[in-house]
């Protein structure tokens, strides 16, 4: 059984017509084989072709050329016989929001024709694994994002498949739910010797798999076990410590601005981890690092992944250094708070989304709001931007009270939303003109600002905004948010859905802005991005659980042995939940 591969892909091609009317190859001459009884990860940035490949495996798309065999069957010729034997969970699983958890399970069991006598046992096992047994009566629409995803997985697995295919099951899911989800998948592989193919953008998830296949722009870049892939970065990985008083992100910015010497650099745990180019010599490296001491560190899968991406894209200089800090006139003292929040409360009916929260954000600071799905961070964020009125409490933004001077306060902030929220059928220039006008800019001033920001963000003014690639859409959103030179820039999950290289470029810009005196408030799902922040706040169930520098937050959980931000986050949220349970039981 184990000798025959579950999936055999040979010279597979699939092209689509892009929004700009041009054809592009979503899958470009890919050949690979997936072993049975193993967990195989398809990794790659958004738009790499992972979903296209998965949909072809599930018989939902026909390949243009090449052959594709799943469980020994030619999918293109007999999609139904493949579909009868596999379980496929698409990125957005079709749960019926008005039906209860149990009704959803019943429905999917009916759809797949699961015999009545098998259901009870299967349901019990699924509900037990997903920890949803307590919620069988709850409508699916009222579950949190993580729970919905788990229910989706349970519905996918109402019958026992020969192959399980999961398309980015952890997208938009917080670290806690992500961990639970992977526990379930791991359990299935261990106990049922199930073959699983999973696509992901997270390297820590890929690391758990027996086999990792790396894609980018429709091409297969590498294929092997995490151990063999890691080898590629051997001897090139280092950690540098910034000198006292310098934020790690500034050292990181210095390194990433030298693509001739450094392949990649990220702040991590107060230090900067970087990958050097093998061919470059020590003295030049020392020259860039200056007063920052550095030492080798063991290579990781992520290092190899970044190297592969850079190799493919680096030649054309994908991340051109975004230059020096944009000239932004900063008025007021440096250490003054620009956001003051005291006893902020927001209730929706009986439900308290944000409970008595207080904090301050200082000028020029990068402030990160983190929390699991439904923790209240979005609500807090929306209140800070003036999108949602507070139920009670004091809220001051850029020196203006948000209750009494809402429009004035809004004039001093910039906002970049999670989804692309500019007018898709207007051109880049028209969007900038409109939002400039909205902030009271006109005439010569408006013209100059638009010209400057087109230059700074490298945008084509006549391009239609709606069909820009995701990275450029985000640049436009940033340009729009900064056009009126705000004191504070609010960014809501700005890096979800853009590839790691674009994320590096994005953070390079943020670092420059903060250096120029702009205060940044940001929410993110990527815990490692908290390392760029000066201070972070972790919320759960509407309460502030931790507030401080990333270092302080990590130390708060030192007892639990948390090394990185991800495990620190999980530890803090779990501590908070345990305490709440104790408090609830003592009443």
């Amino acid at each position, binding site marked *: 059984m184990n000798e025959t591969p579950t999936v055999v892909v040979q010279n597979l091609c699939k092209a689509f017509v892009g929004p700009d009317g041009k054809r592009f190859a979503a899958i470009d001459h890919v050949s690979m084989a997936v072993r049975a009884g193993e967990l195989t990860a398809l990794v790659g940035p958004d738009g790499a072709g992972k979903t296209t490949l998965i949909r072809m495996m599930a018989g939902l798309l026909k390949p243009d050329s090449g052959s594709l065999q799943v469980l020994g069957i030619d999918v293109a010729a007999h999609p139904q016989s493949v579909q009868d034997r596999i379980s496929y969970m698409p990125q957005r699983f079709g749960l019926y929001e008005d039906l209860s958890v149990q009704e959803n399970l019943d429905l999917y069991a009916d759809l797949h024709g699961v015999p009545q006598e098998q259901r009870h046992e299967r349901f019990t096992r699924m509900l037990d694994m997903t920890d949803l047994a307590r919620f069988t009566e709850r409508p699916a629409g009222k579950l949190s994002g993580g729970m919905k995803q788990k229910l989706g997985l349970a519905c996918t697995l109402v019958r026992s498949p020969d192959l399980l295919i999961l398309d980015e099951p952890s997208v938009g899911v917080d670290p806690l739910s992500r961990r639970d989800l992977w526990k379930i998948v791991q359990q299935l592989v261990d106990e049922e010797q199930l073959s699983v193919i999973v696509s992901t953008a997270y390297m820590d998830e890929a690391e758990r798999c027996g086999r990792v296949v790396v894609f980018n722009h429709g091409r297969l870049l590498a294929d092997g076990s995490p151990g063999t892939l890691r080898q590629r970065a051997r001897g090139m990985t280092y950690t540098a410590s910034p000198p006292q008083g310098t934020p790690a992100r500034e050292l990181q910015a210095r390194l990433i601005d030298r693509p001739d010497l450094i392949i990649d650099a990220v702040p991590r745990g107060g230090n900067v981890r970087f990958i050097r180019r093998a061919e470059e010599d020590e003295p030049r490296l020392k020259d860039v690092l200056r007063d920052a001491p550095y030492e080798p560190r063991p290579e990781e899968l992520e290092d190899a992944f970044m190297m592969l991406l850079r190799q493919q894209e680096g030649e054309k200089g994908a991340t051109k250094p975004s230059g020096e800090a944009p000239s932004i006139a900063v008025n007021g003292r440096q250490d003054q708070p620009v956001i003051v929040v005291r006893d902020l409360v927001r209730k*929706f009916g009986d439900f308290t989304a944000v409970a008595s929260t207080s904090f301050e954000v200082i000028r020029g600071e990068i402030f990160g709001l983190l929390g699991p799905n439904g923790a209240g961070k979005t609500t807090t964020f929306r209140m800070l931007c003036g999108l949602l009125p507070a139920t009670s409490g004091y809220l001051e933004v850029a020196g203006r009270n948000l209750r009494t001077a809402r429009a004035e306060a809004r004039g001093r902030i910039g906002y970049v939303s999670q989804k692309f*929220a500019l007018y898709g059928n207007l051109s880049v220039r028209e969007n900038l003109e409109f939002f*400039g006008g909205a902030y009271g800019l006109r005439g010569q001033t408006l013209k100059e600002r638009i010209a400057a920001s087109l230059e700074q963000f490298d945008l084509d003014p006549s391009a239609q905004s709606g069909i820009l690639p995701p990275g450029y859409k985000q640049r436009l959103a940033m340009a729009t948010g900064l056009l009126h030179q705000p004191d504070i820039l609010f960014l809501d999950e700005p890096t979800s859905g853009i590839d790691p290289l674009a994320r590096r470029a994005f953070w390079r810009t943020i670092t420059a802005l903060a250096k120029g005196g702009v205060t940044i408030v940001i929410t993110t799902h990527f815990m490692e991005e908290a390392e760029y922040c000066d201070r972070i706040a972790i919320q759960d169930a509407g309460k502030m659980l931790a507030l401080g520098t990333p270092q302080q937050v990590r130390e708060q959980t030192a007892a639990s042995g948390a090394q990185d931000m991800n495990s620190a986050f999980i530890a803090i949220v779990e501590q908070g939940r345990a305490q709440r349970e104790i408090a609830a039981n003592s009443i």
Partner: protein
Amino acid sequence: MRRCLDYLAKVWALVHKEMLTLVKDPANRTLLIVPALMQALLYGYGATYDLTNVPYAVLDQSRGAASTELLARLDGTGVFHRVATLTSSGQLAGVIDRSEALVVISIPSDFEERVAAGQQAPLQVILDGRNSSTAGSAASYVSSIVASYNQSLGNVSSIAVVSRSWFNPNLESRWNMMPGLIASLSLIQTLMLAALSVAREREQGTFDQLLVTPFTPLQILIGKAVPSILVGLLQSTIIFLIILFWFKIPMNGSVWLLYLALFTFTTASVGIGLSISAVALNMQQAMLYTFMLIMPFMLLSGLLTPVRNMPEALQMLTYANPLRFGIDTVRRIYLEGAGLGDIAFNFIPLLAVAIITLPLAAWLFRNRLA
């Protein structure tokens, strides 16, 4: 002065953006002109109660000079066309049942003698009542022909009705219908456009981006309302020009007053549309609400059936219907040449609707609970 200019510049930015998004979409561009054009022509030709062709059958059992003369008069109208000449009363039901004839005229065998003797001569007219209004018109047409024949025979009745219909001398239903369309056709488009404007932004996420700008609710309201009103007036103008120059229905009133009335009417419609838009979560909901409202607006407007024929309670309800006063005002200006003094009352319910819905929409923009 400077602040005033700043204010106007901001509002202009929003109006400009709204117009751009409207015009940039090719589907939108056709929507602005084609439906108004098409519907005006369709209604002009299609929606009419006028009788121009009445198929009829005859059962002439008298076959005398009097019956021949009467039938000749009927045929001479150009409206009545004989489709069958029946020979027995048994065939009578068949022609009506099969809708071959709308009217059957049955002349009894003693018709000739009675007319000659100066006696009352009954003439049976059988109508297809399945279409009551056409049958009614046909019946009255027959009566008037019989009356004029009576007169030619010298049977002058003591009272003769001489009617002249003002404003629409030939009582063409097109004259009644078309000016009403200036208001009603543009209502559909204006309502839809306004209802989608905020709902679309909410659905696409752009509304949040708009709300974080320093725009005040009033500025957003103006920015959203002005383009919809302009589009409404554009549509009204298209229909107005078609009626005036294509169907050649004479305009008796002042163009300025007509446009003042149309502006007030369109503003009230936009107020309703924007309120729908501010409540709706997405475009689908906005469409649903709009369709739910358009039907009663049309039925209770007096476009097809007079408001005074409706039950008392429904008549009260029509005061909330801008279309009722829109149609009435436009008709009266167009056909009667009514002056401002004559129609001043109609502005009150229109303004009332606008004054309630527009601020409601502005308030809802920001205060609608997520």
